[in-house]
């Protein structure tokens, strides 16, 4: 046998932040994300200068990122994405802050944190990800990479 084949499915276990179920294509970044001043909530895109996702849309994606940064307007900016129907389908992140906790709650999308493995190491943009927020279980299916 040569190198072990990549398993078709990887499962991560974490802690529920907001319950619910969603599945979709992953959008992964190693950069933290600013809300107010960092995204355009009318279009659901990252606008921060020098951000690796600059110009990219997170609408209907499973957004995988380290956490929130910047202005206290984080929750309100992401809350508006729910109203404009440009929100992600789910969020997976590592660093808990008041900004992201409140934002996750008012976006009403499943969110999980405190994982047994770093989701930034495991998930790649384009993977198909199933998020069971209530149980804190995330299933990753290798998808066509972008």
């Amino acid at each position: 046998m040569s190198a072990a084949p990549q398993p078709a499915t990887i499962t991560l276990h974490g802690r529920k932040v907001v319950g619910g179920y969603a599945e979709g294509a992953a959008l992964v970044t190693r950069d933290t994300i600013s809300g107010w001043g960092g995204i355009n909530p009318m279009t659901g895109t990252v606008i921060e200068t020098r951000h690796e996702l600059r110009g990219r849309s997170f609408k209907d994606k499973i957004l995988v990122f380290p956490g929130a940064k910047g202005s206290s307007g984080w929750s309100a900016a992401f809350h508006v994405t729910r109203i404009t129907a440009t929100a992600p389908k789910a969020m997976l992140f590592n660093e808990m802050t008041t900004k992201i906790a409140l934002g996750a709650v008012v976006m009403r999308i499943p969110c999980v944190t405190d994982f047994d493995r770093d989701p930034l190491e495991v998930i790649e943009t384009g993977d198909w990800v199933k998020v069971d927020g209530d149980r804190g279980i995330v299933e990753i299916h290798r998808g066509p990479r972008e």
Partner: protein
Amino acid sequence: MRLTDSEQAMLDGRDGKAKQKAMDLLVRYAEALGAERFVDTTNVAGVPAYYSPVLLDYYKVTADDAYEVIYSRFDLDSDEVVEVPRMMVNSCGLQGGVDAEGWKTLGKSYEALRMSERSEAASAARGVRILKTCTPYLAGNVPKQGEHCAWMESSAVVYCNSVLGARTNTEGRESTSAAMLTGKIPDWGFHRDEFRFATHHIQVEVDVTSVMDWGMLGYFIGAAVEERIPVVTGRISRPDLIRHKHFGAAAASSGGVEMYHLEGVTPEAATLRKALGSKAPIAVIPYGKAEQRRTYDELNAKASDPNVDFVMLGCPHAALEQLREIAGLLTGRRISENCKLWVFTSRAIKAEADASGYTAVIRAAGGAVLTDTCSSIAQAVPPGTKVAALDSAKQTHYLPAIMGIQAWFGTTADCIDAALTGRWNGRRP
């Protein structure tokens, strides 16, 4: 999540629908954080039911009938519109996007003014103090040491924790609006002793004295520690309120600093050991001449054209001493025809500046003293602005990206010189 009897009563709706919806949101928020209980908060600073065109459109309301709809559905994240009663605890409103007097100078529409006025009047009728500033601590809301607060506005949060020794996380619009009605906020983060110790030790090896020096030091530290807590030792002079204000605002914008310690200066840092909670720092980071110069160059990297057409001061909102300094530099002089000067402050401080004659001096020189907002928040610069001059590291961080302009960073005197001459002559330290 453990609720007291009175908290459970609110959640069960025994104190009315609005408090029930507010508690429901706060419980969801606390559970998301992993908090186990609430603390009683007696001081809330937010932007209750702040109106915007997108919200008015979405909820199909006008500025005249929007308050309870927006408060319920957006601020409290409730599917049902509830009657919003008088606020339960000391609450104040922070900065908005338009100056009630200088809205035309800012290029704002009458409709924008009207939205702001209607929202403000409805908040005032429910007991919210209309401070309209990012510096509530300069406008009459000064929390006591140890007081549990629920504040928005990163530069005010860092001041509240670090300088006043009061306790707040960086709250958001929804959590502050819920806290105003209930007097509750999750017992998490900066409300807890063990969360407030320094993690990073910054050793200052160059003299840090001027307001610009403190702004650069804050900007450097924010980038170095991100969301962690620095303790600063070394060649720092004892800073006044203005230096704290510029330092904290800078650290909270290049990073996410919500609290800092200055050895022998801030209330929870009598000694380095106390600030660190007797633990070793994660990192010891030097700040010398090289780091200071690099920070200055980074802040000035967004400018190349020495012809300045806009000078904006007052980020965070100017203190009276800053308006005095600006008026002193402008006395008997006239700013360049090619340049505009806008100075932002709170209504409270402007009233003092009016009484002291500073506003009249600044106006006579061709400048404007504006309140309630700033260029970044209002997304407003004079028409045709290409190159700004700023004395705030925070504003320099945000404004070029928000407005697509160049910006120089320097001292207040450098900026006033630019306003008078239309040229940037700031010098690298």
